[in-house]
């Protein structure tokens, strides 16, 4: 099956600092893939290249087999933290992407409104972000992301700012949502457990300049939070991934 998104030897340097040293990866339709790497490895740079913030220095990016020429409008991006606008009510935050696309406000609201119950936000349409808990804000941010109906979701450490318990709750919720909607998603994270819990496959990046150290498949049954056997397997994968991150020289290439 042809990959939905394909990156081939993508390189990027800022002045003299090499950030991406030939990143190759692919995401299939309906697949949940994670990019896992140490902080400052350049994971977010990959997303900035995809969303048009910066240009790659070299390499190829293909979406549906076509070179990605017009960057804008193919990816729905969820930035670190929630990036909700404090001056907009939740419903107006959720419709932001549609508004930028030129959808009239009324039509955008009509489209977003029915999704509030599924995102656990029913009754909070007219609240301001400051009135919501961290988990609810994150769900609102995901709602804002998915209603754009783009080809792919790009999730940049979406739960990094949450407390540990809320984070686990959000991961379970996101997995359930993903199972239902089968979004094609690329997640950037430095949380090994999060990557293993959510992903079909994981690309493990090295420290800067980032290269792909390993591609780790996660052949675990879903939902991921059920069953002792699944948990044991997950722990084994987590341990292997962690080892490859902490001792990159010892394990490099062994899992390719």
């Amino acid at each position, binding site marked *: 099956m042809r990959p939905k998104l394909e990156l081939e030897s993508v390189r990027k340097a800022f002045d003299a600092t090499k950030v991406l040293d030939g990143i190759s990866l692919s995401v299939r339709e309906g697949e949940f893939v994670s990019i896992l790497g140490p902080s400052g490895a350049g994971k977010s740079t990959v997303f900035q290249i995809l969303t048009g913030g910066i240009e790659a220095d070299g390499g190829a990016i293909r979406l549906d087999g076509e070179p990605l020429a017009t960057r*804008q409008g193919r990816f729905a991006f969820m930035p670190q933290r929630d*990036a909700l*606008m*404090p*001056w907009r009510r939740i419903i107006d935050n959720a419709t*932001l992407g549609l*508004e930028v*696309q030129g959808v009239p406000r009324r039509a955008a609201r009509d489209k977003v409104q029915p999704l509030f119950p599924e995102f656990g936000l029913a009754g909070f349409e007219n609240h301001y972000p*400051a009135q919501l808990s961290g988990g609810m804000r994150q769900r609102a941010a995901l709602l804002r992301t998915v209603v754009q109906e783009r080809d792919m979701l790009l999730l940049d450490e979406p739960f990094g700012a949450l407390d540990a318990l809320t984070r686990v709750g959000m991961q379970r919720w996101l997995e359930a949502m993903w199972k239902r909607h089968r979004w094609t998603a690329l997640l950037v994270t430095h949380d090994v457990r999060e990557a293993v819990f959510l992903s079909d496959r994981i690309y493990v990046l090295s420290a800067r300049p980032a290269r792909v150290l390993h591609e780790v498949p996660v052949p675990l049954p879903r939902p991921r939070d059920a069953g002792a056997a699944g948990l044991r397997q997950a722990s084994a994968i987590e341990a292997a991934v962690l080892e490859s991150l902490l001792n990159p020289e010892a394990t490099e290439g062994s899992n390719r």
Partner: protein
Amino acid sequence: MPNTPSFLARTGPAAVAIASLLVAWQLYSDLSGISQTTLPSPLRVAGQAWLNRRALADNALPTIRATLLGFSCSLAGAFLLSAAMNFFAPVRRALFPVFVISQTLPLVAIAPLVVLWFGFGLLPKILLVALVTFFPMLVALVQGYESTEKEITLLLRSMGASRWRSFWLARAPSALPFFFAGLRISITYAVVGAIFAEYAGATRGLGIYILKAKNNFRPDLVLAAVAISAALTLVLFAATGLVQRLAMPWLRLEQKPTR
């Protein structure tokens, strides 16, 4: 409103402080035997203000007009300039030093010149009020645009928003808290700016009234005019707080913990 101090608790201390000052002043004036033409007591100032209420009102109105017109021009100018600086970096680099220099001009020197160039009418007052008030707002706005959360900027870019859209959707609203901080500083200069402009030359206004009262050895009337000027500034200051609450309804939610 739970956990919010009552109106009395919020305004009481200031009222007590001001009343104490006035009482101390009155007692000093009564007991020290100082001449009323040197230091008039608060009661004398109030009494003379009442007797001269018609003249004071006639002179306060042009000052209020000059203040409000000058400040409106200043506000509009500060916003337009800040937006131009936001979109065109060369404009920022070219004009910012000019504006900093404009703030170094001593008002004592510049006010008579502005009157000399633009006459005794409204225009020199508007210009001088704008000169003393636009800079805090301009700095606040420019800094406010820069305070826009990086994630929000990246998000809008990923959505395909133009710079123009991003300005209105994110940068301008992000600047609001900074803008109101600058506005509160500016508004306290506005009345003083108008009075200074009138002092340098005007047919009517609190500034020229103060000058005449001083020349007639009437410190009581000088202080009466000063009290009116202070009251005007307080009213304008309170108005900015009110406007901010209306313009930023989410701010109060952020300041108190949710439920």
